């Protein structure tokens, strides 16, 4: 690279560390605005509820509640990144939850009632299979039959709503087998929590140093060691505070661990596999991707299959968390999932978006719902506020990007 011919940037008059912080902020403006927004929302509810919002019990529940839609957003990022949309995810997750409840209370407990593990695993498998199967059908129609995702998933939304009514016959079906309930209602002992926290921190430091090594080797922009250290130490502190807080209640929540694992897998896939890379390329420039020999149909098919599978995961955790399947299961989750992606910086035009950002987006949506619930705001206003927050947040983002 003939970097030699591009002259060095003249140092400015501000002290170096101020400059560093400002540059960092400018580069990652989106992430930082998100984090600041989360802090602001938390501070507001903390104040409104005299601390109740962040007390160990609510803190723990907040994250637990977030998981159900967060699973959906993890898949939704990739769907939106490829320039598509999936409106059916809420109802599909809901459908999965009622099917799981239906089988559990009508067959599984009757046949294998004495084998807890078998009942729980079969419940999970059925849930995942339903999600996956539906994803395959839907993906096939979108990718290979060429009906736009918007239409297909809109149709699915109605279809699945009907299916939910058929399965439940308008009644509530219990899904409260004890072992199955552990999935979303279980906690890990505090020791396990600390060990997980410790491991995370080790991994954070390790990846930072490996990343730096690589950046140096290939002459990529290398942030100063101080900046990177500050970031990693900041994250580590967050991890420790989090674990301390949840241990004050009952311990690290099972569904949160599950979410972290799923989010990590999808993050890895989006950066380090062809499947993920192609998704971003397709969203970024479909024609260039096509001429690059990418099988666009197959990629989009797989994205919707993955989305279906994640709906399965979401539906299973939903059934496990609430303990029953009901006609309103999954109502409006698709909108929360889409909003989380958009808040997290996913571009509706495709090509841009990260799982990490989306997770913060999901946390913001969950914080709003939860906070408004415990402040006893009328449900009507919950909707009003969510709507306003979404539009304002995107406006701020647009404004800041334009400013740059």
């Amino acid at each position, binding site marked *: *690279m*003939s*970097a030699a*011919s*591009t*002259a*060095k*940037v*003249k140092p400015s008059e501000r002290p170096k560390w101020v400059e560093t912080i400002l540059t960092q902020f400018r580069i990652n403006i989106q992430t930082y605005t998100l984090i600041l927004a989360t802090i602001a929302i938390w501070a507001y509810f903390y104040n409104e509820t005299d601390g109740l919002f962040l007390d160990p019990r609510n803190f723990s529940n907040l994250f637990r509640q977030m998981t159900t839609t967060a699973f959906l957003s993890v898949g939704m990022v990739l769907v939106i990144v490829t320039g598509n949309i999936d409106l059916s995810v809420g109802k599909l997750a809901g459908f999965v939850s009622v099917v799981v409840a239906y089988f559990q209370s009508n067959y599984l407990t009757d046949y294998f009632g004495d084998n807890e593990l078998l009942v729980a695993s079969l419940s999970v498998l059925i849930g995942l299979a339903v999600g996956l199967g539906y994803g395959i059908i839907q993906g096939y129609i979108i990718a290979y039959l060429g009906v736009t995702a918007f239409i297909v998933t809109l149709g699915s939304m109605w279809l699945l709503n009907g299916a939910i009514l058929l399965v439940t016959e308008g009644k509530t079906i219990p899904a409260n087998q004890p072992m199955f309930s552990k999935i979303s209602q279980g906690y890990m002992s505090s020791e396990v929590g600390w060990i997980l926290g410790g491991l995370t921190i080790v991994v954070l430091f390790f990846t930072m140093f490996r990343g730096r090594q*690589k950046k140096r080797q*290939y*002459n*990529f*922009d290398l942030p100063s060691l101080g900046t990177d250290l500050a970031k990693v130490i900041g994250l580590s502190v967050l991890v420790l505070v989090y674990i301390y807080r949840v241990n004050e209640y009952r311990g690290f929540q099972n569904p949160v661990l599950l979410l972290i694992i799923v989010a990590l897998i999808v993050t890895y896939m989006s950066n*380090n*596999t*062809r499947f993920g*890379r*192609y998704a*971003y*390329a397709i969203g*970024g*420039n479909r*024609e*260039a*991707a*096509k*001429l*690059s*020999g*990418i*099988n666009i149909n197959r990629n989009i098919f797989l994205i919707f299959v993955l989305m279906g599978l994640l709906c399965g995961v979401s539906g299973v955790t939903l059934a496990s968390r609430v303990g029953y399947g009901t006609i309103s299961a999954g109502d409006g989750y698709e909108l929360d999932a889409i909003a989380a992606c958009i808040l997290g910086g996913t571009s509706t035009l495709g*090509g*841009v978006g990260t799982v990490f950002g989306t997770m913060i987006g999901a946390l913001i949506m969950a914080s709003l719902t939860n906070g408004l619930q415990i402040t006893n705001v009328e449900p009507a206003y919950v909707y009003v506020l969510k709507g306003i927050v979404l539009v304002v947040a995107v406006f701020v983002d647009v404004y800041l990007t*334009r400013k740059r």
Partner: protein
Amino acid sequence: MNTDTTDYILEFENVTKRFPGVVALQDVSFKVRRGEIHGLCGENGAGKSTLMKILSGVYPSNSYEGTVWYEGKELRLEGGSIRQATNQGIATVYQELTLIPTMTVGENIHLGKEPVEVYGINWDRLYADTRELLTQYNLDIQPQDILQNLGVGKQQMTEIAKALSENAQVLILDEPTSALSEAEIDKLMDILDNLRDHGVTCFYITHKLEEFFRIADTITVLRDGQVITSQPTESLSVERLVSYMVGREMTERFPSSKHVPGEVIFEVEDLYAREPTGSREVLHGVTLDVRRGEILGIAGLMGSGRTELVMTIFGEYGKITSGSVRLHGKELHLKNSRQAMLAGISLIPEDRKRHGLVLMQSVLKNISLPNLDQFAGFMRIDSDAELAASLEFANSLSIKAPNLNVPVDSLSGGNQQKVVISKWLMSKPEVLILDDPTRGVDVGAKYEIYKLMNDLAEQGMAIIMISSELEEVLGMSDRVMVMCEGRSTETLDIKEATEERIMALATNVATENGVTETV
């Protein structure tokens, strides 16, 4: 400001523009006379487009250091909107056309400033005004033509007319000819001459150096963001200009080649094809063959079906109705680019922004995109191997970027082109098709690309090169196939190929009446 009596309309004074990690312009100072055509010349990434973006307000006044004096006053433009510049009489003719294809010429020209009466738009006035404007500047287009039915050349005229309708005093043309045919270029030159007579000052950027000598009054050379020289065209020669640009003597434009063509490996026989949607036939009888270790040039006018031909071969454009495509004597039925690549055929597409690049992504990701199979297992991309391989290509084509991690849209046009080339070379094809590979590439880098093509041919690759520059076709090919109106006319050996011969075949006329208008 000035003590001499010359009438300067613009003066750049110590203009410096920085991007993160790059100084795109450094202490740029020069003057521009009123009514002249001012050529801006320099290698890819020299800063030409950046300077023009400062003038047109894409980069607002507070984003750079130094001063631009316009009509004796300091030019202040804010907010990254080009509207302000247009209002002050500085208009830009964009290379990527910014017109609306479904509207008429008149509608496009008046977009945003339609003559409105109480009852709505006064169409009669709109078209009358348009006609007046078009005749005033001798532009050969009809106000009511729908834009998408016009050739690139006429679309560009519309773009120019639109700029002029704003009473432009200064007109910026950044690589206006890179998508034009020879005939269209002649036409553009006439238009520019005419504008000079009307007292309009033009900035003219191109990588086809001859054009400067045809049209420019003064040439300013930029190198690495600095002004190397600014002098009247008469006092310069192509050789001098090149050495100013690249900072050393360049004795030859085309590297010498010693190709030893082997057996024929790729053939197209009597190919007929229709456009993908609709039933218009775009190819009516194309025959060509290319041998191992040979460069076959394809010449022809814009619209002669060259791009359609290669895209059809590649499985990405038309429906083949008859004829055959054979590789190693075996007939191919390619349905898409993936199959073509697997068969060993690569195509470097013509339109880099539309077909070549994912602009928001990094140089690295763009280069490796079609080649991930080389680095990827089922669940993993070996990112070290990916980086190493991409870096090798980036270096061998001397792509000018701070590093491989920057997004391609922050690269200069020519460097973007090099990224496209790297991307396709990495797949090590047997047959390489290049559709106008040096469009927007500077002389130095062109030379590098030519060398690379020669190397590849020597290693036994069969190369098909489409080019709109006759000089390039003649300088690089072993044989030249000439296309005219969707047909292949004749394939000439390089020894018997001359500009006149090619032009005659391309325009399908006996040479007596020269070049026909095909715009």
